[in-house]
């Protein structure tokens, strides 16, 4: 972790910390009167939380829990940690509510039949079993939002009222206020207009031509090649991850219906 702090005339401190995690960058700006050591400890706490979920959900790490699931869940039931069980339950729920546009099994090699579940969860035993061979669960398009939610909860528990957390530029949560205004002003990447966030998350998905893993449409399994990005504003960062894919893939009609369910707004 690296950090800087500026102290202003009224005793207000603006603390900025940044580090690399989740295969991307993390930036935190915190307005507080807490001293630097306390803030460093707080950010370390967040780092530990991120590392915990990286060990659970990074499918590129062969030692991660999701890799264990991907290797073994077709052969037998796999017992899940509380955290992964909750994540996979959420992903299943979001898959249903988005007409299948959000799908963490999209990179599976064995194509599923329509309406067929990629995986079955047993809430009693807290286990998972794949419905078919060749299933591959990929949390890359969800984990950042989920982790961001956890970070915000920690911040609330620690009584931090005003902060901005950026996970990789694509998931930004603004809590409370900028030292000089209400909410936090973030410029929308597509049209350069300002978007004011107050206890909200701005999530962006899309194809900038550099992405190694482009968005694939679950309805036809074709990678989207259009170079554009879409941004959504949600109360919950995990929902933002889900809806940014929906906004990118769904028809306008479907998109509006889904957005209404979640109380989200598209940044235009």
């Amino acid at each position, binding site marked *: 972790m*690296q950090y*800087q702090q*500026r102290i*202003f005339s009224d005793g207000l401190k*603006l603390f*900025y910390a*940044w*580090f*690399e995690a989740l*295969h*991307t*960058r993390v*930036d935190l*700006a915190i307005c507080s009167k807490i001293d630097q050591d306390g803030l460093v400890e707080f950010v370390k706490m967040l780092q530990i939380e991120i590392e915990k979920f990286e060990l659970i959900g990074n499918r590129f790490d062969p030692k991660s829990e999701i890799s264990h699931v991907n290797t073994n869940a077709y052969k037998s039931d796999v017992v899940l940690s509380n955290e992964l069980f909750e994540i996979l339950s959420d992903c299943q729920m979001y898959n249903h509510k988005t007409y299948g546009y959000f799908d963490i099994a999209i990179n599976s090699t064995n194509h599923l039949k329509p309406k067929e579940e990629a995986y079955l969860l047993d809430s009693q035993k807290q286990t998972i079993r794949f419905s078919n061979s060749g299933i591959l669960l990929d949390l890359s398009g969800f984990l*950042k939002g989920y982790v961001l939610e956890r970070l915000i909860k920690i911040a609330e528990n620690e009584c931090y009222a005003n902060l*901005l957390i*950026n996970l*990789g*530029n*694509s998931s*930004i949560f603004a809590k409370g206020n*900028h*030292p*000089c*205004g209400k909410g*936090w*002003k*973030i*410029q*929308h*990447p597509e049209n350069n207009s*300002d*978007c004011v966030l107050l206890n909200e998350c*701005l999530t*962006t*998905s*899309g*194809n*900038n031509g*550099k*992405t*190694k893993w482009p968005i694939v449409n679950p309805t036809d399994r074709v990678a989207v090649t259009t170079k554009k*990005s879409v*941004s959504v504003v949600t109360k919950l960062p995990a929902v933002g991850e889900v809806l940014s894919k929906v906004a990118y893939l769904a028809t306008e009609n479907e998109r509006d219906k889904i957005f209404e369910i979640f109380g989200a707004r598209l940044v235009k």
Partner: protein
Amino acid sequence: MTNIDRRQFLKNMGMISGGVLLATSPWFSAFSEQKHTIGSKARIGIIGPGSRGQFLMSFLVQNPKVEIVAVCDLYQPAIVAALKIAPKAKVYTDYQKLLDDKNVDAVLIATPLHLHYEMVMDAFDAGKHVFCEKSIAYSMDETHKIYKKYKSSEKVFFVGQQRLFDPRYIHAMEMVHSGDFGEISGIRAFWHRNNDWRREVPAGATDEQINWRLYRDFSKGIMTELACHQLQIGTWAMRQIPEKVMGHGALTFWKEKREVWDNVSCIYVFENGVKMNFDSVLSNKFYGLEEQILCSKGTVEPEKSKYYFEEIPPAPAFLQLMNDVENALFGSMTFAGTSWAPETANVNTGHYLLDKKPESDGTSLLLEAFAEAVITQKQPPLIAEEGYYATQLSLLGHQAMKEERTLNFPEQYKIDYLNHKIN
């Protein structure tokens, strides 16, 4: 550097506020009495006012606390040029006569390397303070004898290691010593040029007189002329003296009328296994010169005045946020977009050590410090020792290359300094 510039420099470096400057560069204590020395003068005699000597004189004459009272050289054109810089200086052709001159408080010796030993020893014997251009002497034994002579003389002894006063290097060392970059993993020093290092020989002069650096009886070539500057950076950064050295030297390109190598490579090994490499080729200048201090969290290149963190740099939008708040602005932040990944990140272009390019490479401050020390008659801490080991390491490296074997630092030449502390 004018007095105002110097004050600003010292303030910027934390000297006036009693900051960390003295911890990293204790020799700056030479300036601790600079207010009390106003009106006093260091009367300096120049032995060897050749091109380097004249360069140093050009700084000395700008200092109101210095008076160049004498110059000495056998080579008449050097005397003529020196008198243009210091017209009132008394002229000598015999340095012993200059040393007998009671108006001379201190001498600056900028003669060819092989002449240093006798002149420095005689200068101390004559009760003069000494500034000796690097390297100190032609052999390790001579260098050690000079150091012992200085220690028993109670006189001031400076060596021309100007990087000790270079703002880029001082700030770099502050950052390195504060642990900003983590542990030092290695040091790569190199000094590449693409020229024959030869100067035109005027009528009446010999090639040995003008191009003495190319003759092995007068010089150890690259090691004593270039490496000694850079090896000192290694000991300054590491705060350790390397234990041993191995290397190879050869004459590969400039083969005519030259006895010293034009292509050398040495590896110095510290106690903890960290290595300092020194390389120099004189037939390619693409990479120029640099001392790269490689640390676990970052890299410092003081010559370029830059440092680079291993980890990701701060996001410009968040730095802008800090500035906006400082100016009470509720600005918009520009960073949202599709996911940032290391492979899509910008190339690490690093950060500058200083806000602006320094006006001096440290030479003027080094000479001002010498003048202050001559006036106060107080030797600033560690400056002689840094110069001592810079010379000894360059000579040891030369010896290792000559013998083509690994050489440990000889016990008999260790002095009471850093890890060579003698109980």
